[in-house]
């Protein structure tokens, strides 16, 4: 760095008259900024500050827009503006001037200009486009400081769409003689990779060069990119494993210049980055992991100094060891490390130790057992963060035996917790545990009641939903169902008799539904009593109108008998004149149904929760009514926003008459919610301010995935759990009988076996024994969350022959009966395999590799290649003082096919059509994949070229494509079987759009096999814009008119007009026509109508109008999202023009 700037400086004259830099510090404190800051600190009230800053802003605003302000003054003004913005005041007027300063100032003013820009704007801000030219200019500057500034701002933020404009210049900088420039260029490219990975795909080879840079700083910078790329696609970089290991070895061995040391630890940032990369490479890959073991061991050994930074490295090592293919020695060391962390008096280490335990405990439950006393202490820790992490850990080790204690602890925490985010998370976890492991009805209902009261209105809506579903679906035992429901009814009645005003709305909704459905089960409970309790809810001020409608529905189900009807009548009177239409409707229903018992029995049959309900979402039953109304001259229905827009545009050419508002959607589902509580609760999710709306909203299905329900149709867990228990029922809690504990705990000093202990200690131990029961014994493995698949298998086996009705007898028997041999075998097997491959339980691939032996793991050619690399570069590694990465030798095949010759491989039927550029997708040592797309009339053809660059023929090429947005079908005659050495195989696919999106992506995998060797595979992705699927739609103006009315999805936006010609509207539409293949139907004065379709039959219509120098565009289509996507492309097309 030093000589960079030195050179720049020598180029400047008058270098001698420099002030010392402390002078600069003094100077600014007497400046205007200084005055401002002092002024603010002297003030006492927020109000005064506001006044002062506003005055300041007015003066800044005046000066920045004055033409007489010099750039030097501008710089000073910008600093003040930054300060005001930091105080939280609006300074958007200065943004444009910040850009101007960066553009026009000299190097020093530029620096402030760029700083202001990077603080004011973010990469999606439109003003940033104005900065592109400045950056371009500065990147080409001969002044290195200017180049540095430009690269810095690019690394901070840059508009995605403009990356191609500066990419070549940034790339060029990778070869710059100065390391600081190379380093910044690498980081700028990293930023590009993050925001637009496709843009930098072609320069992967240059990244490899950066990785081998002679300056360790540049090499370290390139690791950011590699970490990201390897995370996205570990398979593509396995050949670099040995290189990364070599680098890490050198770093750990202290081969770097002293400059890189941090508190006498060599380059810790670099070490941690490398460890993270290695853990991605070694994950689920035994052969790569084997390369890594040694250096991990060394890192662990070297990191001995008692300093925060070495703990950071140790922690990363531990994470890596538990991520890659397991090795027992390393696991032992890692476990010891975690132990040290957990036992450390330093809070930070204790926290991380707990966190590590949380991850590890699923693979190694014994580790939690070793530290049980510490965990117990942490459970009562004054720091909530530690407490919270401990609960997380306990959540992972919950089983049927300790569930009550753990849930109790979680609820305790919830009652004092204030943070919504944590509440939502924990409440979900408690609900999950309760469903999974509930020991009995009472406990379950009570726990869920606490969940509902504490979780209140912030919890996920699926918690009450799945609870109600569970109640209504019931289990196999009718008697058990009845008991559970009855208990729920009883406990809710007593809650309502207490202080219902304190209960959250969601809970009240649950209560009213349950009472409405099941209060008939209770013999001593009269319907009228329940009705009165419910009516009381209606009178409470705090009850929301949504809850009221739940209550009214519940009342409708209950109103029978004289007393009941009279309560109902009273309520009806109040609400049948309510301003809320939904409430009014419910009241009407209540009124009618309470008077007509027969009808009520038919509409709301008792206990009908299980029958599936068909919802006619198209409201077809209203068709008759609608057509009648239309025939009688009524206007077609339009959504409200559309009507407003039309009102605003009343002077424009009106294509349709005004709409009439009918509350059709309200009345349509009136009867529906008796059977589906979800219907209402979904709307409750929308009206409440649940933070998770984005992914919950809109769907009416119950979200039960991920929650393993034990209270399902097959019966309770409590009926099955004892069956499992039978395997370890003789092993009581580990604390009480140390002699029976596993080997791991016996060495643990904290296990007080026989020594008498003081009272509080004993309490803790009791807690420990209740918390850690079921861990560490044989069967515990099956109880752990991670091995759930096995748990299920286990269960099915145990339960298989038992009929549901006999299940209850099974409980009592199994407690005393000896475990079946089948269970024993299963347990043993599980334990055996967990010794060798604890980490790979979930991957069948891995286990097959295991059995084949290590050599067969990743193909032999791979291993050879990396070996060779290491040999090649090893001399220089020892000689130089700086790190030189083992040259990974980018595979530049001399005979790699050029785009031109791939053209000739295009299928004959496509050769006449225009095709996109052939872009390389990915390559490895044996295959090069490229692809292009061809626009056909009714579809888009994707052509994939597979070039075999190896010297042997490849057999059994299998290409699989998949996409979220597209329908992919193989053009049948193009299935590829094999590719001869150095030849090209071509696959052709036909793509149609399933779900429109601005860009659509196809991901694919090629698996192939050499005559000798194991199957291999390469993954790739291909992204293309939606425009490839757009075709012109030829319609007449009349047809357009009728279609327009039918389409329901629309979007509007103002677009920039191309106004360089005589006829801006026509010019603009022509550009759109040319670029997006739209069909211009007609241009009438200031308006134009345009039509297109998405492939075969998905039309999209566009209506545009000149308005105040812009083009207001209105897009409509029957396909959701299509208008939005098309709008985006229109905007792009016009911008690019």
């Amino acid at each position: 760095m030093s000589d960079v700037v030195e050179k720049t400086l020598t180029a400047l004259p008058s270098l001698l008259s420099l002030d010392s830099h402390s002078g600069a510090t003094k100077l600014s404190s007497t400046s205007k900024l200084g005055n401002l800051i002092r002024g603010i600190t002297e003030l006492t009230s927020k109000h005064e500050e506001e006044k002062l800053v506003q005055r300041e802003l007015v003066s800044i605003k005046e000066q920045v827009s004055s033409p007489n302000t010099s750039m030097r003054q501008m710089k000073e003004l910008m600093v003040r503006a930054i300060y005001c913005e930091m105080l939280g005041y609006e300074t958007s007027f200065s943004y444009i001037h910040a850009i101007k300063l960066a553009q026009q100032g000299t190097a020093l003013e530029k620096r402030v200009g760029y700083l202001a820009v990077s603080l004011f704007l973010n990469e999606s801000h439109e003003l940033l486009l104005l900065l592109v030219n400045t950056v371009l200019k500065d990147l080409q500057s001969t002044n290195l400081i200017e180049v540095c500034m430009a690269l810095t701002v690019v690394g901070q933020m840059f508009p995605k769409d403009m990356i191609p404009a500066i990419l070549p210049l940034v790339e060029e900088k990778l070869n710059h003689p100065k390391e600081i420039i190379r380093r910044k260029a690498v980081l700028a490219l990293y930023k590009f990779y993050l925001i637009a990975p496709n843009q930098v795909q072609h320069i992967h080879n240059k990244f490899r060069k950066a990785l081998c840079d002679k300056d360790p700083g540049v090499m370290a910078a390139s690791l950011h990119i590699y970490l990201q790329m390897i995370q996205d696609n570990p398979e593509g970089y396995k050949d670099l494993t040995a290189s990364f290991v070599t680098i890490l070895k050198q770093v750990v061995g202290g081969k770097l210049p002293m400059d890189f040391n941090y508190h006498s630890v060599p380059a810790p940032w670099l070490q941690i980055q490398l460890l993270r990369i290695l853990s991605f490479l070694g994950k689920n890959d035994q052969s790569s992991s084997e390369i890594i073991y040694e250096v991990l061991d060394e890192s662990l050994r070297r990191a001995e100094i008692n300093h925060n930074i070495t703990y950071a490295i140790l922690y990363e090592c531990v994470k890596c060891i538990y991520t890659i293919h397991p090795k027992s020695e390393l696991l032992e060391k890692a476990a010891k490390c975690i132990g040290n962390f957990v036992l450390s008096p330093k809070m930070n280490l204790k926290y991380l130790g707990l966190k590590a335990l949380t991850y590890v405990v699923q693979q190694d439950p014994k580790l939690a057992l070793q530290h049980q006393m510490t965990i117990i202490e942490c459970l009562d820790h004054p720091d909530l963060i530690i407490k919270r992490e401990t609960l997380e850990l306990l959540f992972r080790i919950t089983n049927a035996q300790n569930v009550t204690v753990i849930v109790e602890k979680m609820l305790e925490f919830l009652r004092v917790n204030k943070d919504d985010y944590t509440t939502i998370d924990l409440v979900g976890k408690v609900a999950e545990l309760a469903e999974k492991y509930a020991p009995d009805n009472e406990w379950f209902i009570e726990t869920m009641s606490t969940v509902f009261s504490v979780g209140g209105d912030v919890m996920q809506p699926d918690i009450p939903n799945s609870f109600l579903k569970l109640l209504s679906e019931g289990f196999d035992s009718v008697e058990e169902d009845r008991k559970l429901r009855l208990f729920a009814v009883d406990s809710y009645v007593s809650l309502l008799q207490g202080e219902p005003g304190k209960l959250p709305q969601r809970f009240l909704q649950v209560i009213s539904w349950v009472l409405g459905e099941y209060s008939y089960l209770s013999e001593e409970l009269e319907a009228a009593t329940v009705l009165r309790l419910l009516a009381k809810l209606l009178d409470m001020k705090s009850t929301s109108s949504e809850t009221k409608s739940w209550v009214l529905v519940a009342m409708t189900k209950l109103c029978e008998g004289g007393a009941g009807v009279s309560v109902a009548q009273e309520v009806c009177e109040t609400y049948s004149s309510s301003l809320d239409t939904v409430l009014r409707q419910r009241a009407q229903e209540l009124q009618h149904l309470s008077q007509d018992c027969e009808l009520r029995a038919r509409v709301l049959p008792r206990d009908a929760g299980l029958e599936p309900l068909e919802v006619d979402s198209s409201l077809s039953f209203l068709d008759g009514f609608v057509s009648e109304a239309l025939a009688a001259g009524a206007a077609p229905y339009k959504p409200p926003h559309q009507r407003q827009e039309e009102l605003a545009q009343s002077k424009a050419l009106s294509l349709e008459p005004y709409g009439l508002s009918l509350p059709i959607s309200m009345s349509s589902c009136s009867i529906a919610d008796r059977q589906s509580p979800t219907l209402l609760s979904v709307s409750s999710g929308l009206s409440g301010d649940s933070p998770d709306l984005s992914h919950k909203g809109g769907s009416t299905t119950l979200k039960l995935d991920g929650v393993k329900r034990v209270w399902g149709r097959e019966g309770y867990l409590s009926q099955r759990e004892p069956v499992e228990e039978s395997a370890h029922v003789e092993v009581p809690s580990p604390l009480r009988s140390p002699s029976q504990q596993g080997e791991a705990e016996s060495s643990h000093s904290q296990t007080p076996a026989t020594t008498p202990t003081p009272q509080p200690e004993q309490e803790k131990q009791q807690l420990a024994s209740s918390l850690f029961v079921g861990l560490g014994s044989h069967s515990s493995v099956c109880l752990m969350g991670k091995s759930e698949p096995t748990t299920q298998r286990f269960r099915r086996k145990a339960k298989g022959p038992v009929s549901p009705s006999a299940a209850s007898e099974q409980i009592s028997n199994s407690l005393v009966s000896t475990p079946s041999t089948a269970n024993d075998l299963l347990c043993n097997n599980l334990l055996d395999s967990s010794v060798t491959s604890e980490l790979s339980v979930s991957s069948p691939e891995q286990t097959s590799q295991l059995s084949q032996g290590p050599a067969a793991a990743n193909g032999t050619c791979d291993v050879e290649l990396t070996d060779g690399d290491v040999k090649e570069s090893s001399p220089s590694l020892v000689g130089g003082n700086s790190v030189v990465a083992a040259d990974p030798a980018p595979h530049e095949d001399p005979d790699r096919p050029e785009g031109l010759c791939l053209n000739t491989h295009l299928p004959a039927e496509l050769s006449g059509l225009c095709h996109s550029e052939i872009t390389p997708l990915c390559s490895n040592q044996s295959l090069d994949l490229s692809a292009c797309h061809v626009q056909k009339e009714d579809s888009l053809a994707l052509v994939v070229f597979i070039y075999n660059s190896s010297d042997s023929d490849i057999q059994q090429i299998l290409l699989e494509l998949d996409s979220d947005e597209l329908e992919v079908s193989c053009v049948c005659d193009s299935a590829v079987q094999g590719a001869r050495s150095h030849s090209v195989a071509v696959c052709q696919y036909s793509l149609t759009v399933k779900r429109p999106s601005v860009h659509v992506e196809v991901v694919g995998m090629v698996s192939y096999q050499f005559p000798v060797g194991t199957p291999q595979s390469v993954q790739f992705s291909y992204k293309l814009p939606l425009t490839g699927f757009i075709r012109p739609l030829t319609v007449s103006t009349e047809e357009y008119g009728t279609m327009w009315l039918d389409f329901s999805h629309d979007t509007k936006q103002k677009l920039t007009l191309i106004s360089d010609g005589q006829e801006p509207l026509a010019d603009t539409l022509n550009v759109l026509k040319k670029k997006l293949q739209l069909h211009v139907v007609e241009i009438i004065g200031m308006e134009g109508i345009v039509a297109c379709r998405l492939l075969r039959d998905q039309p999209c219509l566009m209506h545009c109008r000149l308005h105040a120098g812009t083009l207001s565009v209105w897009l409509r289509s029957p396909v959701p999202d299509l208008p939005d996507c098309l709008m985006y492309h229109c905007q792009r097309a016009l911008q690019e023009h």
Partner: protein
Amino acid sequence: MRFMLLFSRQGKLRLQKWYTATAERDKKKMVRELMQIVLARKPKMCSFLEWRDLKIVYKRYASLYFCCAIEEQDNELITLEVIHRFVELLDKYFGSVCELDIIFNFEKAYFILDEFLMGGEIQDTSKKSVLKAIEQADLLQEEDESPRSVLEEMGLA
């Protein structure tokens, strides 16, 4: 790293650097919320927090809190050292730094930060080379400034 904040014990923001695009309104809300949480914590407590979907690492130096938001997979301990190295850099540059230095010369503090972290990632870990880069650019600035500033003061007066 998602963002870095510096604020005083009184809850005054001293420096903010955002590495991912965030709307102005959200920024304000997040800053306010975080300050409240961090300022309420006691000295002996753990320096890490889980907040929304982020991990927060904070450390107090004299009257200033340094606070970083990192992602789930990032290393908390090394982030503490990032903060520490930044403090070391400030300390070396200003010569035993205090809050006032940062208040009055916040743009300098930003320059140092930009030379140390780029786009949220560590750019240069060597204290020497970061400070060299900054000081050279500063020299350039002063050399240019000093002759003119007198004239300007007069012109304005």
